[in-house]
């Protein structure tokens, strides 16, 4: 799926909030990352590390005005003539409390808002809404006339994601969109995201502080701290460095900790296991050899 062509490039990016005021806060100070078409990439980092600041550059909510470069789908986001509207349609951003993005009375209307604003015809809007709702597991016929605020927390998140998907983005950015959902809702959301990647070929950027979710979903991880990129590599590479992760306010999934400690005790295991199933196979080798 990945054809190596970068769709998002961030080079040595700096951003200061409330610049020039006494309340100045350094949001980013030299962040780097690159996302290629068809990839599933994770961004991890402690609260305040700069994760959200980075992803808000991806669709022009924040524009690079200081040092550094952001190229999205070939467009230099510092260029004032960039068509931000078209970028926002191609790069869909789902926020931390996605239910706060809902505002219409009926679920179907809420999901339809984006495509209507794009000026699409009713039939096409309806097709897109149907597709988006079905793919996130809110069957169109059953949910389109439900009151938005009668949905459960997990369903609200799905509705908000459907609203973004109805724009038919090429890149879907989820900023802590699975936090605070119950285990069943989280598993369903993760399965939806995987399906969007596998069946629809969407490029996925997943921001989270839940290391288990991260390990279960993404292929590659960037860790940010203090506004900078501090680690990057495959999911296995990153999570097999628990001490380094802890230095940056992060952790590894429990299972990676187990493998790491077995390795330290001298067992010949591959410590780059990130799921329980992988760990089971690795441990079985040393129990059974």
């Amino acid at each position: 799926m990945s054809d190596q062509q970068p769709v998002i490039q961030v080079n040595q990016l700096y951003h200061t909030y409330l610049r020039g005021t006494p309340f100045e806060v350094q949001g980013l100070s030299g962040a780097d990352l690159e996302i290629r078409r068809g990839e599933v990439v994770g961004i991890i980092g402690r609260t305040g590390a700069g994760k959200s600041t980075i992803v808000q550059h991806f669709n022009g909510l924040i524009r690079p005005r200081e040092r550094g470069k952001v190229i999205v789908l070939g467009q230099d986001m510092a260029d004032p003539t960039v068509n931000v509207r078209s970028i926002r349609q191609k790069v869909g951003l789902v926020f931390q409390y996605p239910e706060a993005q809902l505002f219409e009375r009926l679920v179907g209307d809420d999901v339809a808002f984006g495509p209507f604003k794009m000026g699409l015809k009713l039939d096409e809007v309806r097709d897109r809404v149907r597709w988006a709702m079905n793919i996130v597991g809110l069957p169109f016929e059953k949910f389109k006339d439900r009151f938005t605020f009668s949905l459960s927390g997990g369903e609200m998140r799905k509705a908000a994601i459907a609203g973004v998907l109805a724009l038919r983005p090429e890149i879907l950015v989820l900023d802590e969109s699975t936090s605070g959902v119950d285990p069943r809702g989280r598993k369903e959301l993760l399965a939806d995201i995987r399906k969007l990647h596998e069946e629809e070929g969407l490029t996925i950027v997943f921001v989270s502080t839940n290391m288990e979710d991260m390990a279960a979903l993404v292929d590659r991880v960037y860790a940010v701290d203090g506004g900078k990129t501090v680690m990057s590599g495959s999911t296995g590479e990153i999570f097999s460095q628990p001490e380094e992760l802890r230095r940056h306010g992060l952790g590894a999934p429990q299972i990676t900790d187990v493998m790491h400690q077995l390795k330290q005790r001298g067992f010949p295991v591959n410590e780059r296991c990130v799921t329980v199933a992988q760990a089971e196979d690795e441990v079985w080798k040393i129990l059974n050899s």
Partner: protein
Amino acid sequence: MEPIIQVNDVTFLYNPDAPNPVQALCDVNLTIYPGDYVVIVGHNGSGKSTLAKHLNALLQPTKGDVLIRGLDTRVPANLLDIRSTVGMVFQVPDNQIVATVVQEDIAFGPENLGVPREEILARVDWALRVTGLEAVRTHAPHLLSGGQKQRVAIAGVIAMKSAVIVLDEATAYLDPVGREDVLRVVRELNSQGVTVVAITHFMHEALDGNRVIVMEAGKIVMDGTPREIFARADELRELQLDVPQTTDLAYRLHQRLPAFPSDLLTVPETVDAISKFAQPLGLGQRKEMAV
């Protein structure tokens, strides 16, 4: 010992007069003793938060009674006592901070209880120390990290000398280190005798408790020690709840090798068990000796 919390046959309906009222709790019985650390798990909508809100009279039962130190939560005259006995910490830290300076926020609770000034100062100092917030006592709360904000909320509760702390998914939005900081403070308070009731979706947090309660559809469906509960992995899976990854691994290995224990909870326990089972085969140890 006298129970500190008694929930007797409690049923609760949201909008009882509506045509289709939502039954959030259904004949719930629960007794909690001083010093307990009870972790409640279950899906959204299973009734966890509704139950938590009954514990300091934010909600009153539609049927049944809730008694806090023997005081009925339905009696208005009991409210001040009940609310100073049971402190709540909610999910989103920003929604529960009222003052513009950390130490003033912590003083807010005891001030409202009419505690004398000297006593408030002493309690604020103590609460700052226990929660590790001394360095930021004069900071603006909204500029703190999520973990720090939740610790401010906890400090506010303990400054009221609450005997019970109820944490309603207080770690949901924190990063791993922030989460660990909050849990460490909660463990410390529990070791000093504070009763803890913690609601969470993170199954490994349930390992801190001496008792785990699983809720589903307004009912308590499982109740036991963490080891007892997580040993029932099949039932948990049926409820679509997680088990800690270590327990999942132990369970899978137990399926392949029945002698392998199925009820492991912590990372060190799991590493030890695997080492023990691998050792007779001469792995690990021998490799170290050869080096």
